[in-house]
């Protein structure tokens, strides 16, 4: 009787959870299982528990493959992500703030450009040409600038929306107290932008860390390889060593997973905010 009542009131929960587990969780479990197997066992591509858990050995092999190419790639990815995101936060906050506070012809132009940046696909080969003419092609710094340009429109939109909720009286009070424009921005406005900043930081860092097309075009060569490029290269190289390939997949999925655990709310808020007013 009571079991039937529980079933009747919980059936939708049970069914939807089961479907979600099969569709969305099983692929990740498959990654974990395959990454834990031996070469020969992983070659069967089965969804089975490994007979012996080789996960640590496999991860070690991935990290030491090709003279620690993976470790180098992780350093590159970290450097690329952190420097790009830092630049994006400061520069976009300045633009979003000015756009909202001083609505003149420049603001109209800037808004139009940001909109274009959200929609228009980047022109690949001409970008390479420009980077090459200023000596930044195949350099981490050039790649950073590309990521900044690509992510900026989204960040500006988030900051602009957020600045509109900060009362202008605050600016005026600071000016009365003799604050210069830069002090006003850095000491009064910027600290208040914290929630928007967190949003921009989490969304942009996941986006840049996961970027594959950018490094593929603008950062070729194994010295500069980012983790996504390394994974892509390993795909063809390790087509018979599925355990190592999936150990690499697992390794690369850890940073976004950590972000997800700690910042899910901000991430959802950010993606919603960045999209709603386009």
């Amino acid at each position: 009787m009571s079991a039937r009542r529980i079933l009747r009131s919980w059936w939708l929960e049970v069914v939807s959870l089961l479907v979600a587990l099969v569709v969305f969780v099983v692929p990740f479990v498959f990654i974990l299982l395959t990454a834990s197997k031996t070469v020969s066992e992983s070659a069967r591509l089965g969804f089975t528990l490994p007979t012996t858990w080789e996960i640590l050995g496999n991860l070690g092999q991935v990290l030491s493959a090709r003279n620690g190419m993976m470790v180098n790639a992780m350093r590159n990815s970290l450097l690329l992500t952190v420097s790009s995101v830092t630049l994006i936060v400061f520069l976009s906050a300045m633009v979003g703030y000015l756009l909202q506070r001083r609505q003149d012809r420049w603001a109209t132009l800037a808004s139009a450009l940001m909109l274009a940046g959200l929609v228009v696909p980047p022109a690949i080969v001409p970008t390479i040409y420009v980077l090459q003419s200023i000596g930044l092609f195949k350099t981490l710094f050039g790649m950073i600038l590309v990521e900044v340009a690509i992510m900026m429109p989204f960040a500006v939109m988030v900051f602009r929306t957020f600045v509109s909720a900060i009362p202008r009286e605050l600016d005026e009070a600071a000016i009365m107290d003799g604050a210069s424009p830069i002090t006003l921005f850095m000491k009064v406005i910027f600290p208040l932008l914290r929630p928007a900043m967190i949003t921009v930081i989490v969304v942009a860092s996941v986006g840049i860390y996961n970027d594959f097309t950018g490094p593929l075009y603008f950062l070729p060569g194994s010295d500069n390889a980012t983790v996504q490029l390394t994974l892509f290269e390993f795909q063809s190289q390790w087509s018979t060593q599925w355990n190592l390939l999936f150990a690499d997949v697992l390794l690369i999925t850890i940073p976004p997973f950590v972000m997800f655990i700690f910042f899910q709310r901000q991430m959802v808020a950010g993606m919603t905010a960045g999209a709603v007013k386009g």
Partner: protein
Amino acid sequence: MQRTRRRTDNKVGAYPHWFYLPAGLIFAVIFVAPTILSFYFSLTRWTLFDTQFIGFDNFVQFFKEPALVSGARNSIIYAIVTCSLKVILGLLLATLLTSRLRVRNLLRSIIFFPVLVSTVAVGITFAVLMHPSNGLINRTLEVFGIDGPSWLSDPNISLLSVAFVDVWKGVGLALVLFIAGILSIPEEYFEAARLEGGNWVKFRYVILPLSRNATFTVILLSFIGGLRSFDLIWTMTRGGPGFASDVIASTIYKQYQAGFYGLATAGNVILFIAVTLIVFPMMRFFNRHEVEL
């Protein structure tokens, strides 16, 4: 008088234009300049060493070569398929997850997580899951007596198989946008729907019409994303078998690798024009038909 003038001066002075400068400089050099240059370079035969003006030859070639034409067609198919599936599934899931379902937060997290995972990782994983004989998908189908297709090596369905994975990865974003849209609908409407009838009335007469802004956003984002998509297709099929799943972005990459920079740039300009012609009118339409809540 004196005082008011000083105040306005102060106001403008507090917001100096040079705040645009650092961001503007990067954006102009890295984004605006290449976009403008692309129109010129698309009209040239362009190698590493020199450029030669050849008029519209690249575009003519783009529309004459079957492989390139099918790339353009595939981009549109891919955009339409992924976009409509994300809208339909996203809206249905959001309706379910804004109801009184007790596990809604857990479900939302589970469905949203793939949005954050690297596209290359997702592509590699699904390429294995879709393996024709040993892959988990076909093995599962076999249990039910279904002979699963060769998802990625059958030219008739390889593009759709990739599109399916794209939806798997991206539906979580559509979901959270729809949830935000539904949650912004005032409670009175739901009250009224409850009095009028059941869930169908709620969905058909409240959620569907009043989450229109979210629908527009999802359509725009996923359509733009669909037209531009590259990573997933490139990691799963490399455009193959043959040219069966080539899209504009993958033909651009192939032309670039082959050293046909002018042709690659023409592909970029075509993508630019396609996106502009489709997306900006869409935006105008959506802006006119926004609902006020």
